[in-house]
């Protein structure tokens, strides 16, 4: 390509982008470039630079249509010598540069995709948010690229699926080892993400929930007592080959070492005489704990160990008892909570009050500058039609109702795939924004809701621009709070003016947690001093009158394993929930 026709980035690369480009050059030999960079790091620009430098026919695969449009906008606005004619979004009609959704790819099989790549002389493929590909596709695409060695693969993600133990190897096989990484603290330092801090808001379960938990645990304890006093079970464990014939079963013991130790613990607690050598293995005898019983039950019921065939009927009884109380969920045993209690804690009604307290506090601090987003898992639309339903669940509509009833001076928007609610006094502005986006009034449906008509439900005949329109409405009016679902705004939603986020979601996976947080920490060109607060909600539990961590806390602990942030006490950037030193607080003592 002649120098004057060369497609170039119009602006200056950021320092970490320059560093990443240098690092990439070192590792390009395997034709796989894997870039991990936090949202806002400019992965798109990096990838486009590589695509244009390679100067070969390219396909860019993206997770959604909204993101597809963002890529095209970047190409046209931020690079020279490129126009719309060079770009296609149609897999059946490819041009030099093509931006296609993963969804479009799923219509084809392996041979068809291979043919498309060969016929169109595609030499560069970009996988944007590569973790989005369905698991089965990682393996298939790996095979295709293995056969088409001339194709360069550029994979981009903010969140490699580290916690997907089953499929992580397949992901790395497809994308290659990570070649360049840009972390959030680096971006904050370079002023490409805004300074931010996480906060954890704790609440306790209601008396009814506490009672429910206690009742469940009483039933679980009954089952444990029955189990540990059942002579057949004791005998079967005492005579298991791991215990009486360990020398001839070393390999099996190693594969089931944890169970082996639990069996020894169980027998020693029942004062059963076991061989001295075995006794020595687990010298300090501690009582069996709940986790030990959970693992032992799971092994007995699901491992098909022929050693326990002799107590088949007893194990059937065990399974029946556990099933009756709801202690078995997809082959896992949980003696502290059943699924119902776990969900109740996650969607704890006390969190509605927590949300209101946070909103009220943040509004006092920021007033009209507050742009707060609440992200939750479900809509729970059953509440929207009835004025009488008592609010007792977490969801978009219950949160909306709770805020608007108790904090009526604060304006709220609801944005989900099926329900959009705006303040009635914003309707005219909404219509103007629609018009600006070429949506005629006859294609807009507006219905006032509630007894006072302060809010209206809005619909468009074609909803593809709804997110964009509502985002603009949120930014440009005096609306302070937007409530949405993880599914719609958890990833890829571009709203840099958001300065406060409440994660009212039970999500604890690395990928989604970081994607949701990414919504709040973008820099805002219109507010260079933006700082963001990210709130996490946790319901503690009570045991014997004292607060204890509990299942909901464990979820947040898992979430924080992958979140980097400022320690409260030291001048350090850390991962892990320990940076808040919660367990040292008085309510745990």
């Amino acid at each position, binding site marked *: 390509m002649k120098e004057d026709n060369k497609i170039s980035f119009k602006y200056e690369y950021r320092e970490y982008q320059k560093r990443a480009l240098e690092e990439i050059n070192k590792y390009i030999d395997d034709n796989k470039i894997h870039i991990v960079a936090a949202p806002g790091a400019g992965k798109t620009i990096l990838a486009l630079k590589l695509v244009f430098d390679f100067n070969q026919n390219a396909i860019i695969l993206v997770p959604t249509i909204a993101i597809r449009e963002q890529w095209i906008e970047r190409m046209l606005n931020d690079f020279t010598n490129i126009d719309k004619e060079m770009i296609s979004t149609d897999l059946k009609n490819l041009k030099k540069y093509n931006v296609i959704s993963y969804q479009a790819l799923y219509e084809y099989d392996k041979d068809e995709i291979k043919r498309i790549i060969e016929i169109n002389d595609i030499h560069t493929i970009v996988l944007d948010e590569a973790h989005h590909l369905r698991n089965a596709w990682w393996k298939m695409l790996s095979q295709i690229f293995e056969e088409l060695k001339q194709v360069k693969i550029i994979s981009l993600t903010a969140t490699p699926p580290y916690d997907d133990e089953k499929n992580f190897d397949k992901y790395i096989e497809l994308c290659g080892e990570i070649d360049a990484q840009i972390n959030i603290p680096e971006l904050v330092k370079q002023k490409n993400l805004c300074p931010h801090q996480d906060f954890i808001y704790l609440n306790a379960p209601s008396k009814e929930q506490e009672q429910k938990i206690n009742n469940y645990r009483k039933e679980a304890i009954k089952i444990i007592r029955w189990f540990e006093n059942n*002579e*057949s079970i*004791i*005998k*079967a464990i*005492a*005579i298991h*080959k791991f215990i*009486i*014939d360990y020398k001839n079963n070393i390999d099996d013991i190693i594969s089931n070492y944890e169970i082996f130790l639990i069996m020894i613990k169980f027998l020693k607690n*029942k*004062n*059963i*005489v076991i061989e001295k050598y075995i006794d020595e293995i687990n010298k300090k005898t501690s009582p069996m704990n709940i986790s030990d019983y959970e693992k032992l039950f799971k092994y007995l019921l699901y491992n098909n160990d022929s050693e326990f065939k*002799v107590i088949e009927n007893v194990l059937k009884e065990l399974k029946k008892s556990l099933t009756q109380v709801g202690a078995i969920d997809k082959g896992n045993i949980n003696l502290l909570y059943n699924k119902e209690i776990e969900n109740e804690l996650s969607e704890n009604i006390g969190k509605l009050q927590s949300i209101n307290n946070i909103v009220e506090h943040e509004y006092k601090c920021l007033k009209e500058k507050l742009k707060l987003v609440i992200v939750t898992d479900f809509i729970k639309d059953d509440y929207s039609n009835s004025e009488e339903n008592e609010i007792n669940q977490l969801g978009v509509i219950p949160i909306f109702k709770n805020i608007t009833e108790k904090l009526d001076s604060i304006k709220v928007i609801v944005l989900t795939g099926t329900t959009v609610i705006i303040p009635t006094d914003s309707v005219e502005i909404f219509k103007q924004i629609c018009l600006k986006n070429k949506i005629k009034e006859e294609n807009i449906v507006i219905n006032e809701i509630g007894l006072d008509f302060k809010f209206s439900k809005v619909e468009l005949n074609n909803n593809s621009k709804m997110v964009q329109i509502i985002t603009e409405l949120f930014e440009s009016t005096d609306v302070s709070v937007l409530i949405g679902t993880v599914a719609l705004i958890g990833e890829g939603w571009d709203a840099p003016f958001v300065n406060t986020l409440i994660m009212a979601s039970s999500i604890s996976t690395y990928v989604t947690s970081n994607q949701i947080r990414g919504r709040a920490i973008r820099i805002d060109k219109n507010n260079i001093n933006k700082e963001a607060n990210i709130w996490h909600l946790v319901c503690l539990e009570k045991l014997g009158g004292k607060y204890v961590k509990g299942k909901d806390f464990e979820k947040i602990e898992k979430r924080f394993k992958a979140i980097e942030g400022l320690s409260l006490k030291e001048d350090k950037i850390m991962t892990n929930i320990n940076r808040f030193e919660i367990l040292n607080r008085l309510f745990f003592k």
Partner: protein
Amino acid sequence: MKENLNEEIEELTKIKLSINDIKKNYQEINSNCTIKKDVRKMINILDKIYAEIFNNNNNLNQFRFYGDFYIPTIARIINRYNNLIQKNIKTDDAQKLLSNIEQTIKNLNEHFENKYNSFFETEIIDLDAEIKVLLKELNNK
């Protein structure tokens, strides 16, 4: 109760380990040997006996001494049978011994079947008596 349980476990352990020895020796028997089928049958019966004595302390008491001597001895005999076969000794005495062992296994199988059935004798007798009483009562009505 715990003391009895430990004793029970000790007895069951001996019996189980010696049955396991028979199973190991069974694996080494040449598939051409006629004894293989009979040892397989013995293992099946012993497994049934084991399941029964595991769950019933009275039956364990009846079988208590088998684990100390009888079953380990059977395991050793089968082991020696295998060794003789492998050495391929063709003398008359050796052949006579092998036939003797083969017949012994058959006899032991019969013995173990009877033993297993004896576990249910009391139950059968009691049930039989119960049925007779019931019929008598009905006839009197």
